[in-house]
């Protein structure tokens, strides 16, 4: 209560005022750094507020274009990935894939649940650092095998079992960074898969050991194609920083599919300063990646997958309207499985956090049993039920994207286009290269409003 209300005779005085620059979070970080001498490590992607898909709106049909009937007229959602060179492209029923997340970072039951949910909906899952597990291969109809700098668990038998190969150059949470899986999560099984001693902190390199630069990448892709007899699509995944050039170079190197991951894309464990300050938002990279494909005459020939902060069907529709062929989800998929669920609130509190904010995935103490190798905790994930929840969620996202696409008069989600979008903010207008709502102004491209 205001002091004057309590005591009308009190002299007027300045209220205590907190600094916007030195806010409570900043102050706490300074104190923590001073006390420990070490930076903060956490999981997930950028948490700061960024220009995002919420800053875009779709333009529904009106007199100049007519909509499709919501419950009667077809709106396709299928996507084919790897049509450029692969003898066996991947055919997915929905344009939402599951991003790469490692066994080691995630528990076996969580990987199985991802496979079950994705397969029910006719989409793919992706391995991660540490190799391919039976849980995932056995339950994923379509599995993308990541080819990472560490090459942990990499072997030609698993490459041949995969449906596609994703050469990982970087990820959105940390473009230019490697990884660290702390000792708590290096269980005997994880250690064996990675050829490492148990319980040590395991580093993942930031660069590939046997190639550097786009010319080498071209030869590396040629080798992977030779090993797999040119059957499997080869993706190249980059963290969003220079999406125009990275996309162009990936295409030049022979990629079938380019994956661009914005800074909201999650990680198992990285320095907070890296997550929040390196890379660019998902919204800012799509048009530039598409432009690179268009300049090379490869848009829709080399497919583009966009990831980083995709949460609902509106995000899917907007990403596709900006030119992506598909999206990938990671964090959202974990939430669908049960990550950060309020039912574990008491245990989150004991860890000094709360449901919705828990991000110390690297510590292996996840109450939800997802980002852990603890045998007791991981029992909390029922792969069948969790897989069902993921399938439900993917289904809702697809229905939502179709709802928006039909409203825009599109018989396939891939028919969405930038002309179906406007922006709510100048920043989003500039990044997505669509007009500010109510104007014809695209900052940096057209005249003033």
């Amino acid at each position, binding site marked *: 209560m205001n002091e004057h209300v309590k005591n009308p005779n009190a002299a007027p005085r300045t209220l205590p005022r907190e600094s916007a620059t030195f806010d409570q979070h900043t102050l706490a970080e300074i104190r923590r750094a001073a006390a420990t001498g070490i930076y903060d490590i956490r999981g997930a992607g950028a948490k700061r507020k960024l220009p995002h898909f919420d800053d875009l709106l779709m333009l529904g049909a009106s007199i100049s274009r007519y909509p499709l009937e919501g419950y009667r007229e077809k709106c396709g959602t299928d996507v084919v990935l790897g049509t450029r060179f692969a003898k066996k492209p991947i055919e997915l029923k929905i344009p939402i894939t599951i991003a790469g997340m490692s066994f080691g970072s995630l528990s076996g039951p969580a990987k199985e649940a991802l496979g079950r949910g994705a397969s029910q909906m006719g989409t793919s899952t992706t391995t991660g650092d540490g190799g391919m597990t039976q849980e995932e291969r056995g339950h994923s109809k379509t599995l993308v095998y990541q080819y990472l700098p560490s090459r942990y668990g990499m072997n030609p038998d698993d490459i041949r079992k995969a449906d596609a190969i994703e050469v990982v150059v970087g990820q959105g949470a940390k473009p230019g960074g490697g990884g660290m899986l702390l*000792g708590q999560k290096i269980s005997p099984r994880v250690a064996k898969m990675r050829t490492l001693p148990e319980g040590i902190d395991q580093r993942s390199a930031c660069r590939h050991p046997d190639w550097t630069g786009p010319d080498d990448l071209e030869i590396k892709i040629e080798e992977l194609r030779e090993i797999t007899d040119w059957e499997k699509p080869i993706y190249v995944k980059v963290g969003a920083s220079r999406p125009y050039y990275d996309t162009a170079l990936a295409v030049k190197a022979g990629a079938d599919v380019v994956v661009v991951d914005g800074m909201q894309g999650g990680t198992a464990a990285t320095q907070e300063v890296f997550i929040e300050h390196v890379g660019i938002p998902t919204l800012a990279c799509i048009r530039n990646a598409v432009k690179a494909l268009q300049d090379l005459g490869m848009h829709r020939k080399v497919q583009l997958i966009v990831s980083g902060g995709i949460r609902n069907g509106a995000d899917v529709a907007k990403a596709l309207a900006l030119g992506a062929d598909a999206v990938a989800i990671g964090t959202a998929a974990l939430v669908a499985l049960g990550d950060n669920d309020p039912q574990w609130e008491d245990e989150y509190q004991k860890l000094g956090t709360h449901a919705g904010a828990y991000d110390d995935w690297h510590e292996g103490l996840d109450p939800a049993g997802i980002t852990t190798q603890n045998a007791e905790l991981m029992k909390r994930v029922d792969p069948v039920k969790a897989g069902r929840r993921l399938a439900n969620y993917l289904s809702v996202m697809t229905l939502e994207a179709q709802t928006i696409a039909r409203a825009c008069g599109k018989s396939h989600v891939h028919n969405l286009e930038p002309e179906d979008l406007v922006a709510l903010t100048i920043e989003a207008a500039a990044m997505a290269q669509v007009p500010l709502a109510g104007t014809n102004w695209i900052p940096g491209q057209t005249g003033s409003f």
Partner: protein
Amino acid sequence: MNASTQSHAFDLSSSTVRELNSALHALKEGSNASLWRVTNPRGLHAIAAGVDAPVTVEVDGPVGYYCGGMNKHATIHIRGSAGVGVAQNMMSGFVHIEGDASQAAGATAHGGTLLIEGNAAARCGISMKGVDIIVKGSIGHMSAFMAQAGTLTVFGDAGEALGDSIYEARLYVRGSVKSLGSDCVEKEMRDEHKAQLFERFKTAGVDGQIDPGEFKRYGSARNLYHFHVDNAGAY
């Protein structure tokens, strides 16, 4: 050669690497097509990559990048030099190079033996995971970086930062080491190591000619196995 063994000739000036690899990948278990002579390789890439059969491939001349990549079971003999990443991620088998090898020879290889008669360039054995690499000449800088398992035996000298951030691989060097990388230290050469080295000598065909005592052993000090801020200066 066994009388029943079939020999196949493959001239890469008139056929493609794709045709060669396709034929090698099509080999079925028990096939008697066990000797493949490849001529005119002319530095082409990915020659005999992804072979998964106990065959012998003899390549007459220099090969480009990733020859024998991800090899399983095959013996690949290169009468020339090898480009970047020869035998990368090999699982088993034997890759023998008569000349020199470029960077990242045997990178991430899990098993088998890589024998290099000449020198190997930088990052030899980077991230090796169980392979045995024998280099009769010298190796370049940053060799055995983050080497996890296996052995790297060098008859000549090693460049800068040998074994940086090494895990459990064993490094044997006969000549000088320009410098050791972070967390890599010289270790005592015990009888078990001399016996292991002697096995490598046999593979290299020099057993009885060299004394294992001339070699020094290097491995992990294991100080960086757990990240600690007090070690930040080591990185």
